[in-house]
């Protein structure tokens, strides 16, 4: 069969991928710059026309994430999406999903903050996304797409990982990736299916014990055991699921560390630098949690410096510094408030920060 290629907006790619990978439900609340996800789904009407996938506009982000919690409890592939201020509202639900070990997919097409902020792209939700955000000790698997194709592919990957580990997965995108259009190679339609995973509530039959989806364990000894079990799972995820891409790191004297739209800019910075004879490479984390710390540590002694390029005041830089353990200077360059730095701007500042003439 010939490849099916379509020109899609990043947000539309999320929606189309959800339908095609056999998602059971989308619950969301509109917010710029990601409303095309629910609009596309409403227009496509998968419930009536394609797969029977439920699409529902909730009264709030709070309700939406809890609808996801309900659907996920029954073993359905459920997802929601939002942008930064809305994602703050979802944090309670995310903590419960992690605590109850429920699989689901959450998409954040991030915009500038804090507060109501702006509608332009930003990467200032890194801390919220990879360091918790909600209460308690928990982690989500966090995927950071840097093309519309990845935005599409990470929906299926996200659901696969969510169900493999019974854990919420987040796609941390940004307003630029969400809004830009690129060609996307589409995958074949996968039918929806619900399995008995041994944990999902389906109604108690005579021949089995009841199932109870909960994050409540009133005895502290039991709660600690639950935490240890979750932490063991996270250790497994750290072992198996770290993903990253390296560009021209073999001979690099400097390494840029960037994800999402910043990685697109960093790719151009490499060309600008090499044109001037400065050997620059890039490590692009694809999973922000688990973070490619070990690889960064390996690379550190081979280079003179690392620069994180982030659209924030510098958040991922903390993880890079932790990874390299002081072996190499790590600097940050980024713009805030929805401004995307140009490659030239990043390159000039890179040279300044590392005193390169």
């Amino acid at each position: 069969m010939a490849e099916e290629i379509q020109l899609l907006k990043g947000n539309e790619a999320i929606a189309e991928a959800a339908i095609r990978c056999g998602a059971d439900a989308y619950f969301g609340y509109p917010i710029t710059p990601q409303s095309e996800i629910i609009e596309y789904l409403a227009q496509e009407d998968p419930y009536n026309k394609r797969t029977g996938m439920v699409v529902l506009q909730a009264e709030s982000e709070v309700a939406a994430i809890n609808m996801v919690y309900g659907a996920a409890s029954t073993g359905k592939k459920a997802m929601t999406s939002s942008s930064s201020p809305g994602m703050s509202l979802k944090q309670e639900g995310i903590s419960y999903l992690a605590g109850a070990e429920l699989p689901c997919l959450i998409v954040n097409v991030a915009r500038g903050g804090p507060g109501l902020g702006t509608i332009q792209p930003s990467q200032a939700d890194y801390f919220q996304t990879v360091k918790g955000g909600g209460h308690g000790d928990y982690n989500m698997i966090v995927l950071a797409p840097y093309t519309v194709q990845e935005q599409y592919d990470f929906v299926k990957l996200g659901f696969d990982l969510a169900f493999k580990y019974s854990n919420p997965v987040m796609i941390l995108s940004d307003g630029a990736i969400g809004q830009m259009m690129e060609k996307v190679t589409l995958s074949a339609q996968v039918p929806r299916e619900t399995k008995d995973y041994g944990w999902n509530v389906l109604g108690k039959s005579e021949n089995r014990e009841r199932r109870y989806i909960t994050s409540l364990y009133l005895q502290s000894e039991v709660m600690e055991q639950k935490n240890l079990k979750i932490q063991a799972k996270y250790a497994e995820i750290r072992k198996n699921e770290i993903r990253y891409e390296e560009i021209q790191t073999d001979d690099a004297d400097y390494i840029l560390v960037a994800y999402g739209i910043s990685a697109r800019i960093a790719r151009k910075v490499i060309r600008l630098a090499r044109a001037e004879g400065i050997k620059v490479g890039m490590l692009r984390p694809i999973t922000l949690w688990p973070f490619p710390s070990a690889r960064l540590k390996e690379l550190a002694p081979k280079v003179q410096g690392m620069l994180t390029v982030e659209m924030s005041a510098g958040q991922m830089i903390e993880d890079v510094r932790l990874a390299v353990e002081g072996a190499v200077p790590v600097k940050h360059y980024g713009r805030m408030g929805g401004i995307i730095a140009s490659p030239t701007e990043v390159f000039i500042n890179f040279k300044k920060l590392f005193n390169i003439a």
Partner: protein
Amino acid sequence: MAVDIEQYKKDLLAQGAEVVFSKTKNLTDTPFSYCGGCGHGVAHRLIMEVIEEMGITADTIGVAPVGCAVIAYEFWNIDAVQAAHGRATAVATGIKRTNPEKFVFSYQGDGDLAAIGTAETVHTCNRGENIAIFFINNGIYGMTGGQMAPTSLIGMRSSTAPYGRQHDVHGYPLSLTNLLAELPGTYYVTRQAVETAAHVRTCKKAIRQAFENQKLNKGVSLVEIVTNCNSGWKMTAPQANKWMKENMFPQYPLGDIKVPKTE
């Protein structure tokens, strides 16, 4: 000498005794840990009995709240989901929309349904989700130690309104049930109690009706159950029931508020 209950039962049956009542299989053998005289135990039993009697255990998913009934998992021998405080009907919506063939109910207290979860409650009812909501109204926050509830009466003392609820400070008692009955999305709305045998019987019929309605796909069935919280009210159980009749029932009158139109 200890009596072997199981052997005793067998002996009685062997002597020709007739079984006239047995506990529903939908309750676990864990003794209720609710305060003596509290309505939660009766409400739990009635709901679990109805599910068994209708033969829908294998098709029923319950949603438990935050509040005293947060420990429902100790007692309900059915598949269920623990929801975050106030979010029970959003969770129930997620379950029902993706599993329309299942019977889905939420069980919520006054703080859960009528304070922190007001938005979820109103919008679930407004969408006419095809679920049952069981709303336990005792006018106080029992689990957390007797704080004011949205349904606390004017003048009623609680740990956060120690001089009594005053409307100009704390607002008025909120009868969300009556408001919800106004929404086109609710199909059946009734207010019940479980403090007398007669009320227990009527309440059980209402619970049954709420489950039967789910077969019709016509919207929310809401059963409010007014109960006492004797420990929260700082009374004995008999005093609390008397106080409930004299004070709670005038504010929250029992009976059907919205009944399905006969077609």
